């Protein structure tokens, strides 16, 4: 970006000037404070409530509860294992995606992105059907009998569910490696291994570390998969849920959720300040004048086999869910039937709720994020650093924590918001704010300051500039932000499960109920319906925004 040439009201030179300058824009100040107030009430307050709810001696007595200590160690074990494998799989996948001589990249990319659009337990639930002891694949095809309950199948499911985040983040970094460097290395006589070792890997290292930290946060907060196939394997997130579900024990639940926060914040801070270069760029096509050198044949076949296996696994799991929606009794009676859709139809209200709440949350989130990103980008608000931190803070907070926090603060009897659609919408809005915020900031960062200066010279006040200048240019980014928030809200379970009441049930909660009722086929039908509608909305939004591809859920970059 070019250096700022003129004196701009908000980036003035001396501090005295600056303070007076802020007071010249009362509207901006008011908006900024209003935003700050909203963030304080809907982000900070729930977090503080959860942390302070259990009395201090509960924290001190935590080591005495053996099951909870095991939950803690299990959670860390899964974070370690699943993060390593997800990052590894993601790296190999990304490597394949960035080689122009790799066949059918579009197909592989599509398959990798699929887990990001579906309800979080889709893979776990289908795993039960396809790879269980009498699963269609493990038993039907291979005649094996492997129990799926327990931590190692959770490991597989978490890897498959989370590697797309790693793959996408690493792919971007690998694609940014200039092919000219690789070509130069080849000219100097380096073989493929030397190029990989000295150029590709070092340049990708920050992205790999960043992807690992990102995946770690998701695994830490994973709720839906352990619920379905975790068996009796205690984990912090699910134990917090069981305390409330079975015992109404808010003290125990908040204690367990609070234990999740320090590692999540640590990972988040590490990712943001240590690793991330904070390159806010919306993905567009990145052409290069030079083609990448072709891969050695052995590597190409290995990558093809590997990606093929991963893609095959994912497709088989999705086949499991979709097929389950159309059969009479899964695995036993394969007669095709539409009977399951009759049950799905009774859940139409819940599916509608999911879509409407997610759309509303996306809208609120995008509006708030755009305004906040604008204020921070222009440094137009005295406490812009605080605003920036508050906007990104929810990314460090696991969904379960957020859900319990909102339950404590807003879903209490007596509070007018309690049990309404609004409390869910607000929870979704603020939980997904960081994603929308990052995308908006990335978009705004690409707009040169001179245009805003020109508009200011012509007499426009700050928000007129936002509307007339910036918004037009970052509109695709806003649509991308809305889409991200939409998909994340539609597929969310960990927050919804704590906040649903009679009037605001969402589809993911219903699916959980159907699975608990041993109605796996009906659960498949509702999951399939939800999946296709989500994909439809995303496709429509993508067309609408003319191809600004930002994949949901990626935090930085």
């Amino acid at each position: 970006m070019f250096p700022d040439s003129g004196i701009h009201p908000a980036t003035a030179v001396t501090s005295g000037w600056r303070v007076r300058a802020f007071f010249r824009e009362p509207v901006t100040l008011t908006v900024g404070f209003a935003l700050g107030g909203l963030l304080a009430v809907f982000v900070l307050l729930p977090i503080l409530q959860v942390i302070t709810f259990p009395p201090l001696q509960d924290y001190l007595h935590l080591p005495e509860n053996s099951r909870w200590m095991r939950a803690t160690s299990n959670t860390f074990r899964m974070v370690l294992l699943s993060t390593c494998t997800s990052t590894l799989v993601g790296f190999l996948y990304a490597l394949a995606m960035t080689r122009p001589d790799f066949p059918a990249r579009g197909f592989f990319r599509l398959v990798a992105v699929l887990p990001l659009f579906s309800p979080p337990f889709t893979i776990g639930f289908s795993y039960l059907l396809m790879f269980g002891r009498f699963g269609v694949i493990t038993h039907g095809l291979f005649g094996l009998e492997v129990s799926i309950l327990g931590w190692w199948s959770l490991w597989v499911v978490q890897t498959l569910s989370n590697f797309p985040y790693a793959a996408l983040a690493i792919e971007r970094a690998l694609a940014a490696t200039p092919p000219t460097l690789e070509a130069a290395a080849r000219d100097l006589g380096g073989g493929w291994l030397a190029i990989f070792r000295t150029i590709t890997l070092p340049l990708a290292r920050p992205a790999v570390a960043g992807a690992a930290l990102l995946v770690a946060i998701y695994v830490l907060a994973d709720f839906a998969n352990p619920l379905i196939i975790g068996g009796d394997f205690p984990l912090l997130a699910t134990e917090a849920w069981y305390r409330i579900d079975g015992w109404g024990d808010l003290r125990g639940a908040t204690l367990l959720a609070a234990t999740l926060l320090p590692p999540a914040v640590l990972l988040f801070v590490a990712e943001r300040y240590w690793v991330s270069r904070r390159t806010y760029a919306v993905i567009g096509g990145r052409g290069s004048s030079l083609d990448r050198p072709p891969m050695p044949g052995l590597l190409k076949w290995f990558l093809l086999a590997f990606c093929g296996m991963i893609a095959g696994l994912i497709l088989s799991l999705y086949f499991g869910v979709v097929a389950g929606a159309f059969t009479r009794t899964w695995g036993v009676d394969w007669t095709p039937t539409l009977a399951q859709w009759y049950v799905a139809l009774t859940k139409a209200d819940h599916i509608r709720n999911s879509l409407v709440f997610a759309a509303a949350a996306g809208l609120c989130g995008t509006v708030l994020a755009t305004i906040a990103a604008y204020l921070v980008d222009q440094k137009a608000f005295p406490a812009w650093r605080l605003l920036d931190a508050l906007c990104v803070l929810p990314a460090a907070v696991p969904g379960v924590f957020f859900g319990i926090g909102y339950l404590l603060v807003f879903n209490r009897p007596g509070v007018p918001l309690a049990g309404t659609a609004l409390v869910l919408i607000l929870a979704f809005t603020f939980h997904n704010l960081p994603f929308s915020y990052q995308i908006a900031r990335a978009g705004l960062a690409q707009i040169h300051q001179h245009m805003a200066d020109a508009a200011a010279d012509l007499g426009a006040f700050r928000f007129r500039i936002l509307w007339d200048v910036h918004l037009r240019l970052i509109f695709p980014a806003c649509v991308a932000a809305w889409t991200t928030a939409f998909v994340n809200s539609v597929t969310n379970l960990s927050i919804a499960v704590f906040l649903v009441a009679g009037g605001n049930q969402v589809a993911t909660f219903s699916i959980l109920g159907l699975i608990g009722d041993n109605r796996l086929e009906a659960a498949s039908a509702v999951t399939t319906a939800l999946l296709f509608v989500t994909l439809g909305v995303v496709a429509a939004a993508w067309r609408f925004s003319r191809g600004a591809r930002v994949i949901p859920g990626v935090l930085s970059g």
Partner: protein
Amino acid sequence: MRRQSLMLIGVVLSATALSLVGLAEAQQKIVIYAAQDEKTTNEMTRMFTEETKIGTEVIRVAAAGTLATRIRAEKAAPRADIFMGGSVEFHEPLATDGLVLPYRSPVVEQAKIDPAYVSPQNYWHGFFVNSLVIILNPERFQREIASVGIAKPKTWDDLLNPVYRKKVIAGNPATCGGAYIFSALQIFRQGGEAQGFDWLKKLDGQILQYTPTCPGTITLVTRGEGVAGITWADDSIEAMLEKQPIEVIFPPDTGAEIGGISIIKGGPNPEGAKKWVDFALGKKAQALKTELGFTYPVRADVDPPKNVPPLSAIRLGKYDRKFAIENRDRLTKKWEAEIGSKR
């Protein structure tokens, strides 16, 4: 492009706003917390709305403990009108804590319902009877148990056979009503609380997993994750008729539940709630529940379910329901402390 985008945004905004308004629309309705299966609940609510023109809003979770906990959590501002399903062991403690509106339905006199099925203080009405069963996965049983010469389990004690180690699935007594009744049953069978808990600890060695819902047991056994399971007869028979791989055994000293309905005090629509109670005890609803739910009706003039042994053939073990009701909290906490948290 600008006009189109603005129009599209306008459309999306209005659609969202209209939907939200539509959701907020008040309509004569009742809110039901149902610990009952999907099919029966859907049909019952549909029939009720047809008859009375009152809408229903249902939270259906196959775990009575979960719903009772929810009702307790909401006691300062109850959101539900009716708590339905789950044995009366879960309804009575709510009543003792003052969370239930006493009501005696006129249908009780009209249909001459057995007084055992109605709370003497009018706290709850029983609307079905159901018993506990042992379920087996036929293929795994054949391969792993029958092959070593052990016969099919006939009583609960047969499940303590070391060959079943880590092969049995049961429910968690905190959330799932059947599991609580099963645990309480052992206290009466063994002749004392300490002996009952000793037996449960022995069983714990056999258990692979405690599921949060009772039907969850069936899911795992039919998928072959467990060889045997302990759950309710109605869900098991239904799974069997759907040709899921399951075998159902009625042990001679089994437990039974009286499925209850109670009206929650302070709910939004108590008059509608009373109509629901009358409806559920009516002949049509009882016939529906029996046919779709595979449970025994409380009315004498409704046929028992097909495909299920008659109620007279079920041999119930000694069971002091009053003790089970009064001590539910204490016994569940004891189970969690001595068995649940050790896993």
